[in-house]
């Protein structure tokens, strides 16, 4: 199994509070991704990183920010959580970011509930 951990695994928070989710990898892969999974939508890309301090937006980036200060860690921050951000969040890693070497491996997920 790819060495990807996410923390916390479960979190309940209140509307308006800041929340930070952490993804940690031991594979030294260059590319890291944050997805959210919601019923009826499959998984959708929020943000991704293509190197230390290099990040870019995905499909559903509004209300989220990310940071990557080390190769192994990729943080997702909800500056002011809203109920629409209740979801399961997955981190993924990839060696190269482009086919044919872009097989993505996923972490265990974080279940976030915003009340």
């Amino acid at each position: 199994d790819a060495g990807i951990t996410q923390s916390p695994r479960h979190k309940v928070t209140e509307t308006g509070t800041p929340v930070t989710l952490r993804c940690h990898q031991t594979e030294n892969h260059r590319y890291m991704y944050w997805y959210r999974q919601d019923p009826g939508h499959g998984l959708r890309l929020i943000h991704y990183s293509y190197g230390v301090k290099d990040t870019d937006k995905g499909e559903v980036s509004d209300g989220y920010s990310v940071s990557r200060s080390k190769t192994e860690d990729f943080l997702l921050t909800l500056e002011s959580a809203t109920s629409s951000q209740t979801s399961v969040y997955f981190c993924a890693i990839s060696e190269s970011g482009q086919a044919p070497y872009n097989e993505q491996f996923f972490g265990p997920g974080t279940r976030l509930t915003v009340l």
Partner: protein
Amino acid sequence: GIQVEQSPPDLILQEGANSTLRCNFSDSVNNLQWFHQNPWGQLINLFYIPSGTKQNGRLSATTVATERYSLLYISSSQTTDSGVYFCAVEVPHYNTDKLIFGTGTRLQVFP
């Protein structure tokens, strides 16, 4: 944007049966992945398959890129095969290729 459709949406099988899951996509793609999401929520990589056929034990996958579809075959199904199966196509997105997921096929295998 590209559309990814999976069929059937739900499938109920008895242990030992065979099944075929289908993934159709509406435009050309750089690659395609199949995943199994187990009942605990973990996404498990099954195949990374831009074209042709690959096999791994009781599972095999075939992608026909020119006709924009992929098939996942499960033979002699087991209760541990239960869960949701996703296909995801890989398309260009600025500094990376991103994955666009289908909405999945939910498989239940009963003893």
